[in-house]
């Protein structure tokens, strides 16, 4: 930016994008200069992924302009974006794991032989792939099936693919969320190599240490708007946090509740079928919110699914106030007052093609029925009641759930359980994809429930949320519980230290 003579490869000017219910992007500016690594930071839902999806041709902006090499350009679809030299590597990898490595690299532009027969030239794929694989430091045969690769290796294949289309800008959306520390280090090194070969990288990450280690410039987004940028010299942990948070979410608790050690839900030696070699024991105390932190894939949702009876535990015991409960199915869990607000509300939390009313009454529909026939009046009464209590914004309780915004959908999921008698509510990523206003409301609701004596377990990958909302934090890694942090020791570092493999701390990486 300091170098004003340079034209940016990609420039985004005043771009806005609306989704039903939220402004995902509001007049955002963003530029990538040749041969630099720009980090894009911001909280979940700040608009980072949306902005990158616009550049990658997956969304179209409602207003604003995209310039490539200073000239206005249209990105209508993915192939436009590729032709303009932009390669997007998704958060969830988009590889086809039924193909081999070479097949993935050349997917959609396979070299052909045999004239009109249009056969795929496998030999050429193998030869060409090998060169790109070498560039990203992957010592593999191009005919290796992709399904046999680790996530880190699959990611490198994606980068190789980007190189093979002569990408000038490679966008990496949360590339390290599933990587081990060694793999992360290797990726960061590769980014430096890409940079010195003239390829620009847009690096999206929540991991501020990584950003510090690799970025030349940092651009912040907050609630869909630009929140400022930092030059290389200004980049520090604190300055980045200011850029991301800025506003006060009122998360800082006035008092940390200590929780009643006597009344508690206790997990003893729970072994979930996902991680059969690890036993998990901890307790949730009355009046506290227990945070469950860890990286993606640490086994937190799997633990929640085990507690809720979606899968049966291999061994171990759950007891509520020293009364052991036997949970073999979600039905058992619900009967025992254990409820789950799942991570993916569109897939598992709600039936989006049913109305708000039908969703709210589904778990205890028998209570609304006489002789097996549902009373519409009683249903409506209960749904309206919940709608008011949780201030769910919807035209009517007979609106289909899919027409509600993310935050309001989440409240409907909650409403399902609140009309029953909850003992324990497990929140799995309660504010993912939820706008700021609803976020604060959901936190207030959780606190209110906790104060009313409901046990609360909150799984979250949002560091600020974990630190701000929890009274104690349990941390998991690769299926095991690595520690429980008391309120006095709360910090991003203590959580991270427990969440990543203890070989090397991430801070050493910066040096």
């Amino acid at each position: 930016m300091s170098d004003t003579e340079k034209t940016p490869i990609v420039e985004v000017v005043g771009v806005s994008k609306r989704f039903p219910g939220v402004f995902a992007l509001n007049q955002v500016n963003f530029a990538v200069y040749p041969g630099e690594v720009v980090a894009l930071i911001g909280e979940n839902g700040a608009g980072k992924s949306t902005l990158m999806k616009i550049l990658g041709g997956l969304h179209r902006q409602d207003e604003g302009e995209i310039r490539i090499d200073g000239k206005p350009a249209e990105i209508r679809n993915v192939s436009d974006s590729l032709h303009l030299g932009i390669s997007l590597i998704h958060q969830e990898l988009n590889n086809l794991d039924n193909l081999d490595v070479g097949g993935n690299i050349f997917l959609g532009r396979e070299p052909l032989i045999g004239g009109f027969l249009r056969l795929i030239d496998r030999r050429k794929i193998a030869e060409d792939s090998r060169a790109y694989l070498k560039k990203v430091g992957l010592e593999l045969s191009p005919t290796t099936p992709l399904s046999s690769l680790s996530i880190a290796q699959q990611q490198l294949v994606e980068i190789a693919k980007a190189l093979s289309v002569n990408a000038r800008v490679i966008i990496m959306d949360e590339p390290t969320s599933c990587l081990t520390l060694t793999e992360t280090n290797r990726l960061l090194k590769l980014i430096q190599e890409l940079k010195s070969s003239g390829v620009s990288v847009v690096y999206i990450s929540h991991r501020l240490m990584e950003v510090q280690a690799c970025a030349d410039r940092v651009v912040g987004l907050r609630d869909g708007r630009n929140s400022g940028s930092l030059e290389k010299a200004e980049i520090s942990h604190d300055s980045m946090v200011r850029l991301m948070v800025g506003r006060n979410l009122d998360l800082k608790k006035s008092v940390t509740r200590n929780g009643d050690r006597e009344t508690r839900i206790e997990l003893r030696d729970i072994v979930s079928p996902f991680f059969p070699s690890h036993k998990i024991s901890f307790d949730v105390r009355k009046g506290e919110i227990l945070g469950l932190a860890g990286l993606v894939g640490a086994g937190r949702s799997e633990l929640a699914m085990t507690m809720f009876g979606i899968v049966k535990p291999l061994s171990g015991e759950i007891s509520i106030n020293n009364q052991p409960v036997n949970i073999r199915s979600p039905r058992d869990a619900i009967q025992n007052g254990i409820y789950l607000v799942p991570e993916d509300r569109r897939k598992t939390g709600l039936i989006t093609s049913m109305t708000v009313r039908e969703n709210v009454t589904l778990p205890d529909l028998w209570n609304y029925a006489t002789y097996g026939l549902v009373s519409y009046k009683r249903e409506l009464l209960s749904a309206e009641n919940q709608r008011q209590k949780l201030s769910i914004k919807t035209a009517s309780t007979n609106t289909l759930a899919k027409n509600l915004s993310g935050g309001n959908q989440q409240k409907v999921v909650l409403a399902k359980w609140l009309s029953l008698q909850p003992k324990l509510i497990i929140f799995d990523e309660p504010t993912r994809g939820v706008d700021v206003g609803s976020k604060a409301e959901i936190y207030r609701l959780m606190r209110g429930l906790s104060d009313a004596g409901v046990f609360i377990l909150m799984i979250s990958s949002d560091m600020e949320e974990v630190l701000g909302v929890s009274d104690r934090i349990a941390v998991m890694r690769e299926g095991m519980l690595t520690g429980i942090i008391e309120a006095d020791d709360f910090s991003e570092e203590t959580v991270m230290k427990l969440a990543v493999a203890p070989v090397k701390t991430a801070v050493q990486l910066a040096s």
Partner: protein
Amino acid sequence: MVAIFLGLFFGYALLELIQRGPADTFANPVFLGQANLLDLTRSIGLFGIFSVAMGVVIITGGIDLSIGSQFALLGVILAYLLVNYNWPWPLAVLTVLLISMMLGCFHGLLITRAKLQPFVVTLCGLLGYRGLARFISHDQTVGFSGDTTYELLRTLATGSVFNVPAPFIVFVVVCIIMGLVLHGSVYGRYLFAIGRNEEAAVYSGINTKLVITSAYIVCGFLTGISAILLGFYTNSISPASHGSFFELYAVAACVLGGCSLRGGEGSVLGIFIGTAMIQLLRNIVNLQGIDSSLEFVVMGGVILIAVVFDQILAARRRARESRLDIKAAPAEPVAAK
């Protein structure tokens, strides 16, 4: 759909009027004649009951392709029990219903426990049950003798009450009961919930395996009733052809009636109208003297047109609804400081 049905009905009545002239038509109506109308309603009744059976499993996202073959198998069994073994008819009917429910339960368990696809499971049934029917009967046509002990069953299939064919009355009763079950009961809500999103239904504490299995049992029960009525209606059962392709009439009736083969959509009223439309079409094709080999061409074509038309209407309705929703709940701008 109702409009299309009425259009077809009166359209054809009008056509007859024009073709044959008013004097002739009124003196001796064919389409609107009593015999033809009785015939039409009777076949609506006979075909409607198992179309509702099909609807129940289609709503859960499944299908039952074995219905037609079950007719052959159950018909043969019924005839053997009544004629060869001289069982009292209540016992024979009970046995047939029990067998059909067991077959449904068998399908349900294979689908929910062994996690096989409904299409595959019931396709095997389609092949297997017909084969079994032919084996049991040594591939010979079996019939019901003139024995009067089971006159009641015969009346249910071929008789009339106040000039309304008995099968149609049975069908209306089935519709009322199943309408209440599907659209008013807890069980019905569960069926729709499972059809729309089975995983979310599990997360809401619904025992989806039990509910799906029971849907196939209900389907089996209604299939059993249809099998008895159809058996007495035709009075003789040739195991190689009895009821063959009937499951496809049922699927067509469901689809015409607004069921989605993806599950979670459909209504008893829709299936009623769907069945009525298909039978009306068959009736018209017959009366027009169209070559019977062309019957399926006409029906296929009309069903396709109706479904495409319905899709277009549904898309428009959805577009209008989503516009209304945006107006009703305006997005709160995040701009608030």
